[in-house]
């Protein structure tokens, strides 16, 4: 199943070599595609243009929601502008996608280009599913500042870059203006501090409104928990990501803040999956910490008066959970330089056109686009985008997603009232530490 001749070092060497060539040719190339005779393997793979023979690229992703059509539009535009590259897009549910792609790669039927959430990049790098992209980063002279250091560094595993960021999708603070007004609040002034927050909740409670539903599920209760944990000065793991720290004091404070909502009558008990945001749409809930992807969902409700702001600062510092979609290239059974080169052109092109992608409800990873007038003109996206400098991602550690499941369970148990916050978190952390140890042994890191 595994190509024994494939070594990480070999690929890295090739990648760097190709990267140098790309860099040289990229410098002198700014016009439209030139016809190059004797293409094939001799065509210098340029990152900004591809001049080799016609290639077809399979591009897989999990954009099943409102973002899918935006990506499809971008792909179509790319195809018209690049007659010698034909990109075909396939969309799966993310959960299926992460099971399917490694299996497809193992049997030699993997896609050429794909998207991965940042917390899956290291696992797939360690398992040899995706290829290093150092060359592309070098060729385009990308720097951390072009993106923002936490976003950029999130795609590095073992000192090697495996992913190019497309977007970041942070948590934002969504609010229903009508409900706020009913609760005696100024709908244009969402709370920004803990004091304001508590006062707002009290005011709504006095009018019989449970204004901030706490959800026990991963979407988005555990993301809210992580944001709060970082705000209280805590961290999920130690620097090497070899030990879970989420059960320490900041974590307990964060989770207690959430469960106190239920205790104090600001949130109903036993909130089911997605009920928090549905309640906000139905005019029953005022506040919701939810992902930026919610923007387009809320926009569909024509009569809904809503707004979105950066997360309020509850703890001692600003912080927000964020995920990031990143471009990756998949390992192929037989290496095809043309496909690799064309894939890089595609990644770069989409990244440059990510303002379109922002309209789909994301914050573009590229700073130049994020700072541009066009992005600023998207009020909701740019409001959430202002959090860019204090976003937090999961550590690039293989198997980190499995470990996070223990934390998700702990949040669920505490919010559903099965366990006290401290107990739930310490039980979860104990399991997390066992899994971290197993993963270290398995992935050799």
């Amino acid at each position, binding site marked *: *199943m*595994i190509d*024994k001749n494939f070594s990480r070092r070999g690929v890295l060497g090739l990648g760097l070599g190709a990267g140098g060539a790309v860099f040289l040719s990229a410098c002198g190339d700014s016009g439209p595609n030139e016809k190059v005779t004797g293409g094939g393997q001799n065509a210098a793979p340029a990152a900004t243009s591809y001049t080799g023979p016609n290639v077809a690229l399979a591009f897989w992703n999990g954009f099943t929601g409102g973002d899918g059509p935006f990506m499809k539009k971008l792909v179509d535009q790319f195809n018209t502008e690049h007659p010698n590259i034909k990109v075909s897009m396939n969309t799966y549910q993310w*959960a299926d996608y*992460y*099971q399917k792609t*490694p*299996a497809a*790669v*193992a049997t030699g039927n993997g896609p050429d280009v794909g998207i991965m959430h940042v917390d899956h990049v290291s*696992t797939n790098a360690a*398992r*040899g*599913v995706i290829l290093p992209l150092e060359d592309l980063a070098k060729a385009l002279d990308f720097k951390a500042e072009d993106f923002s250091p936490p976003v950029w560094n999130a795609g590095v595993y073992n000192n090697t870059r495996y992913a190019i960021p497309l977007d970041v999708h942070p948590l934002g603070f969504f609010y229903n203006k009508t409900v706020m007004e009913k609760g005696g609040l100024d709908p244009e002034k969402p709370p920004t501090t803990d004091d304001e927050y508590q006062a707002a909740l009290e005011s709504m409670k006095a009018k019989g409104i449970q204004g901030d*539903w706490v959800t*026990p*599920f991963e979407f988005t209760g555990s993301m809210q928990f992580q944001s709060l944990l970082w705000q209280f000065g805590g961290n999920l793991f130690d620097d090497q990501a070899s030990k879970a720290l989420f059960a320490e004091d900041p974590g307990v404070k964060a989770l207690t803040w959430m469960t106190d909502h239920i205790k104090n009558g600001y949130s*109903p*008990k*036993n*909130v*089911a*999956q997605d*009920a928090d945001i*549905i*309640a906000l749409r*139905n005019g*029953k809930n005022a506040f919701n910490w939810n992902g930026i992807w919610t923007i387009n969902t809320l926009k569909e409700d024509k009569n809904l008066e809503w707004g979105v702001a950066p997360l309020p600062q509850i703890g001692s510092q600003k912080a927000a959970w964020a995920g990031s979609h990143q471009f990756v290239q998949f390992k192929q059974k037989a290496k095809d330089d043309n496909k690799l080169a064309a894939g890089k052109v595609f990644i770069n092109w989409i990244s440059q056109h990510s303002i379109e992608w922002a309209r789909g409800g994301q914050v573009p990873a590229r700073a130049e686009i994020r700072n541009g007038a066009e992005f600023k003109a998207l009020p909701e996206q740019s409001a959430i985008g202002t959090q860019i400098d204090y976003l937090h991602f999961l550590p690039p550690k293989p*198997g980190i*997603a*499995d470990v996070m*499941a223990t934390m998700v*369970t702990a949040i*669920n*148990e505490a919010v*559903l*009232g*099965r*366990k006290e916050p401290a107990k739930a978190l310490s039980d979860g952390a104990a*399991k997390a530490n*066992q*899994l971290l140890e*197993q993963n270290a042994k*398995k*992935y050799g890191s």
Partner: protein
Amino acid sequence: MAAETALTRTPPAQADEAHAGGRVRRNGPLTPYLFLLPYFVVFATFVLAPAVYGLWISLHDWDYLLPGKPFVGLDNYQALFDSSSAVYSFFWESMSATGIFTLLSVPLLLVVPLMLALLLNRKFKGRTIFRAIYFAPYVLGVAVIGVLWRFLLDPNLGVVNAILGAVGLPGDTPWTTALPWGWVTLVGVTVWWTLGFNAVIYLAGLQDIPRELYEAARIDGGGKWAEFRHVTLPGLRPVLLFVTVNTILVSANMFGQSYLITQGAPGTETRTAIMYIAQVGLSDYKMGSAAAMSYLLTAALLLISLLVFRLFREKDS
């Protein structure tokens, strides 16, 4: 079973024709094996070989993409019985979730469809429509019924609680987020969804019971209950055996309902064994451990099936 009855019902004339037309030497020692061969090939390729391969995987720390798949002997099995291991409590919790679900759902799925089949077996107007109505949910996929009931039973916003509240009953039952309500939901939805299947099998069985037996019972002066006990039940015995074993296996393999409706909540208490095994093997890429778990589950199910077979056999003698 259906095949069996079809065979016994083959008219003798047709059987004779087959005899006459056969020029192939039918009594060759290899003939039966040749006929069995096609199925055996399929069985060996898709059941036997993967099963043996799975056993092999369960003895390794196995990730199909990593070059190193170290042999660990029985470690994966040992971890399942070692209370200090990372998988121990999760695995046994998931096994007990499966056990609870099976214990609660199987009796209902045996009795309710039987009563339904007895009703639907009577002659009355619109019988076919009712048969269709009760079978209809079974046609739907688990994704459909899962999402449907998740929203209907939402504790805070669902229609069910809203209706209960409107008629003066408690309207805040946490159907999907707390116990024991989670089990009520999962069992209830499963019974509603699948009872049609068992009912159809029972119906077919009922129609195979010779009318004369009922007439004889009536002549002997037996009441309805005696008819049911002495004619219907014995007549249904082979069907009952099939339905019992099949229902136990299907219930023990429950995955979709928990996955979609409760998502294992609260915590991981409604996460079934199959759900946990899928997570360990397919999301965490620990196939060795997942294989060991599934062998343990298989062993448990084999044992239970054997017990059921025995139970029915003893009744026979």
